[in-house]
């Protein structure tokens, strides 16, 4: 009876519970204080919200979009939480990565954060998670800003947590803060313009009004500010400069979590604004995508991959690789076809999984050897074969070797480009894989065939790190072997965003 009532309650408030669980758990962590207990609370919260997101995904897949009015105020006046094919598809990724990152953090955070401050760390992590989930699920644009800032503020703190070991983390966090705030402010200015033009903040309502009203300069200003603001958050090419430092100096668990989720959520916001809110009705909007976003995406792929090749620090290398990967997703979005969009979504999930696992594996390497510099890791493949195998498997995913998730992403993007008749784009995407081969293989060659340093001391890697890393890697490999679920989810999302365009390909 009680169980039934609980289930009913959960079913009814599912959209808000997804955010609420981590949001409530965060102060709970703060209060609890004991690091073991906080860890347990945080993990439980992330697992719960993961379960909820999965339930939400199933619900949306089965019954279609789900609307929830916060506090009972109906949209467009109240704040609406709205789960549709797109965000129900992204949500499990965020919560899922958190579910892996938290156990991983337990094994690794001791290096960065003093035991008595770990409750703070966990609550920041939960806040960040809550913010990201909130951004994704809310149906109100200003609410997006608020959640974005919640997650951003939490992530500045999280990045700064790496300062215990390397003081450069402070500076990285500071830069991140400045840039993130500028981005968020741009975003909020854009929202202001939108509100000026339409008088509403609800996404569905905005979309409706913008579709009927002619696009004037105000809307275009809004578009410009939002594009740049979100572009900054997702590390679009010339706005990416905060990212390498932030990812390199943050604690490993944070890097893994942020790399797999933060930029991905920003991409989601971009997709949401481009396709739902603006709907690309104005030729100017499409033009901007074609003339600005697409070239920037491609420049990003090539430039960032090239930079990654020359990096000596593995974490930095993969951070640059993340910038390059964001380029792939941007080009997919800029294709403006259901296939392109689906490709981007597949890429978001697959890259999230792969990069998360990769940063976890690299974290293990760093923890065991005390360095992430490639020149100090010669021949490490002989002493840590399994960790190297994990890095190799993830790296192959970045290159796009078959049976990895990256292959599916690349497949989807290339076939989307071909379908759209963009031969050169397909070629560029594939050519850039060679650059990925370049940096992945630098690691493999140095680690497996370099002369090992005999005096190196290898510290044992706690199982708490090994299991999540391999678990996430396994998930990513599974996504490469059985891509049907992700592909279908992405296709459904793309279809729902571009209903006027049919003919969805693989």
């Amino acid at each position, binding site marked *: 009876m009680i169980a039934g009532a609980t289930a009913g309650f959960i079913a009814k408030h599912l959209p808000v519970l997804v955010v609420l669980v981590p949001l409530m758990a965060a102060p709970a962590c703060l209060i609890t204080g004991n690091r073991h207990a906080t860890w347990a609370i945080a993990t439980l919260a992330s697992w719960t919200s993961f379960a909820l997101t999965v339930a939400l995904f199933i619900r949306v897949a089965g019954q279609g979009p789900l609307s929830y009015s916060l506090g009972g105020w109906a949209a467009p006046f109240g704040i609406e939480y709205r789960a549709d094919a797109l965000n129900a598809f992204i949500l499990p990724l965020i919560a899922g990565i958190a579910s892996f990152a938290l156990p991983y953090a337990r094994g690794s955070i001791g290096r960065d954060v003093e035991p008595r401050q770990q409750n703070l760390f966990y609550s920041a992590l939960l806040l960040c998670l809550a913010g990201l989930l909130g951004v994704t699920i809310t149906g109100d644009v200003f609410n997006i800003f608020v959640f974005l800032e919640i997650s951003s503020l939490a992530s500045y703190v999280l990045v700064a947590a790496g300062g215990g070991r390397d003081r450069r983390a402070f500076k990285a966090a500071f830069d991140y803060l400045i840039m993130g705030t500028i981005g968020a402010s741009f975003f*909020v200015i854009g929202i202001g313009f939108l509100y000026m033009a339409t008088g509403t903040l609800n996404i569905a309502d905005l979309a409706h009004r913008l579709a009927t009203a002619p696009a004037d300069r105000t809307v275009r200003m809004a578009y410009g500010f939002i594009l740049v603001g979100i572009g900054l958050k997702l590390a679009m090419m010339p706005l990416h400069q905060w990212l390498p430092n932030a990812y390199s100096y943050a604690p490993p668990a944070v890097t893994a979590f942020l790399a797999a989720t933060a930029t991905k959520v920003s991409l989601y916001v971009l997709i949401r604004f481009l396709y739902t809110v603006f709907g690309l009705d104005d030729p100017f909007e499409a033009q901007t995508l074609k003339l600005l976003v697409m070239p920037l995406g491609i420049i990003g792929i090539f430039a960032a991959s090239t930079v990654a090749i020359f990096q000596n620090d593995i974490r930095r290398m993969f951070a640059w690789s993340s910038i390059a990967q964001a380029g792939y997703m941007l080009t997919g979005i800029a294709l403006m076809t259901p296939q392109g969009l689906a490709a981007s979504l597949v890429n978001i999930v697959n890259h999230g999984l792969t990069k998360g696992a990769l940063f976890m594996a690299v974290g293990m390497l760093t923890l065991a050897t005390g360095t992430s510099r490639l020149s100090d890791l010669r021949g490490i493949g002989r002493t840590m074969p399994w960790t190297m195998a994990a890095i190799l498997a993830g790296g192959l995913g970045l290159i796009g070797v078959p049976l990895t998730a990256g292959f599916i992403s690349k497949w989807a993007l290339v076939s989307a480009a071909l379908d759209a008749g963009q031969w050169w784009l397909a070629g560029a995407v594939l050519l850039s894989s060679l650059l990925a081969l370049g940096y992945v293989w630098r690691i493999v060659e140095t680690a497996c065939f370099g002369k090992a340093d005999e005096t190196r001391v290898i510290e044992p890697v706690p199982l708490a790190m090994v299991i999540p890393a391999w678990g996430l890697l396994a998930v990513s490999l599974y996504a490469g072997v059985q891509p049907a679920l992700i592909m279908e989810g992405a296709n459904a999302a793309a279809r729902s965003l571009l209903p006027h365009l049919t003919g969805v390909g693989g």
Partner: protein
Amino acid sequence: MADLIRSIAGHYNYWMFVILMMTGLFIVVSRGNLIKKIAGLNIFQTSVFLFYISMGKVTGGTAPVNTGRAGEVYSNPLPHVLILTAIVVGIATTAVGLALAVRIKESYGSIEEDVIEDMHRTERPA
């Protein structure tokens, strides 16, 4: 000409928004001192507040308080509400930024960006 002046004068607070925004950004771009950067950021954010509040202003409108009189024109309250949230966010950001500046000062002994960059350059292993 008169139109132009009226247009400029009529959009006075929007012009202030633009000027503030540019000032804030300029400070962020040009000043090496981290605290000054945060200050610039603050000015930048303030410009956003101004922008929202101006947006909600209805010409001739009063404060959005329900007096019961019919036909009364009042300003749009929603942007004001929103900006309250934004102010909170701004404060939080400033707080975190300042906290970081403190930690940077502790570990580097300076909050001048070029000094810190120099330290980084010498720190980086060959």
